[in-house]
């Protein structure tokens, strides 16, 4: 029995009652949803699986499955997808009902419950990250904050000093991004580098959480992108490292 998770280009996968294409779709699983493999592959692609809480065997294409990573990483990326779905796949805008209340929950997770999505002047992307990490659980020592720069700096300092922590900050050519990592980029016109972030913890930045790895890019989910929770792809180099072309200056490796 192998624990797997959905990893689809279209952010979900059909679940079938038999190992073939046809009129046999019995369900749909979202990106990162867990499944358990219960037998050998059938035909050229069909994996017999069991979905959590169900007893019957269903079939899912091997092309939309990946091996699960650690439990804290899986919890984190599932929380991101959950929020992406809660914002109706990027169509729910921060200031509209009920989405402004969801933004309020993000703020509440870092003790700023007086804010919500109707306050459109205060960027909430770091509150989103903090909310997802807190919800995932097990990330003891993470610097929950309204500013990305706080936990980026913390992760780099920990890496440089060989200190334990849930994240270590690497240069983009030092670590190939994996599921549950964070991609951190500078904002337009801000001149932020890895070395600057190692020395400072108060600067404009933005981070997204990696939920899928492809040959030429990683897919991420982040908050306050186009006024909602959005997916963003970051290009990879041929070696599998993040490309600097996307204004990326650091990758925070999930150590759990």
């Amino acid at each position, binding site marked *: 029995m192998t624990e797997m998770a959905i990893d689809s280009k279209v952010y979900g996968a059909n679940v079938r009652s038999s190992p073939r294409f046809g009129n046999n779709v019995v369900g749909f699983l979202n990106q990162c949803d867990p499944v358990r493999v219960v037998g050998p592959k059938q035909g050229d692609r069909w994996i017999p699986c069991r979905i959590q809480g169900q007893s019957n065997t269903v079939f899912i294409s091997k092309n939309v499955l990946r091996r699960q990573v650690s439990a804290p990483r899986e919890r984190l990326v599932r929380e991101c997808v959950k929020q992406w779905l809660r914002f109706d796949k990027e169509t729910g805008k921060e*200031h509209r009902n009920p989405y402004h209340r969801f933004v309020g929950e993000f703020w509440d997770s870092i003790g700023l419950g007086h804010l919500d999505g109707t*306050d*459109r*002047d*205060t*960027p*909430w*992307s*770091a*509150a989103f990250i903090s909310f997802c990490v807190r919800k995932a659980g097990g990330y003891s020592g993470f610097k929950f904050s*309204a*500013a*990305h*720069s706080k936990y980026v700096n913390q992760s780099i300092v920990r890496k440089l000093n060989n200190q334990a922590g849930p994240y270590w900050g690497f240069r983009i050519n030092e670590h190939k991004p994996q599921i549950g990592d964070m991609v951190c980029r500078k*904002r*337009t*016109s801000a001149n932020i580098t890895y070395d600057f972030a190692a020395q400072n913890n*108060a*600067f*404009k*930045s*933005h981070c997204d959480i990696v939920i899928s790895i492809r040959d030429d890019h990683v897919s991420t989910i982040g908050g*306050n*992108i*186009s006024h909602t929770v*959005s997916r963003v792809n970051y290009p990879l180099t041929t070696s599998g490292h993040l490309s600097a072309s996307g204004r990326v200056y650091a990758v925070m490796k999930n150590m759990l």
Partner: protein
Amino acid sequence: MKRLLVILLITSIGWIGYRMADSEQIAVGQSQSDDPCGAVAVIESNRVQLQRRPSTFSYPSKFLNQGARVSLCDRVGNWHGVILLERGKNCLENTQKKYYDGTCLSGWVHQKHISFFAG
């Protein structure tokens, strides 16, 4: 000669006065996906001068009190081009031009007076 010096003095004073009163515009981002400014800071002390230009050699347009929130939009050296945020008012909504032209007060605050809050 004396008359020439007086004219020169008056011209200089006029030019300095004009420069002090003149405002320098605050540039805002124009990304489709990111916020126009992307960060908010809190004023750390009372009677902080909101300058018209990124310099102490400028007439302040307002004095800010401790706890006031400003959006950090532009930067020149140690000076931040800021928009003074007002509760219940979205100062940056529909900002689409290169320079801030919204209804909230804008100006320049020295880095030493602010504490980075969000972004």
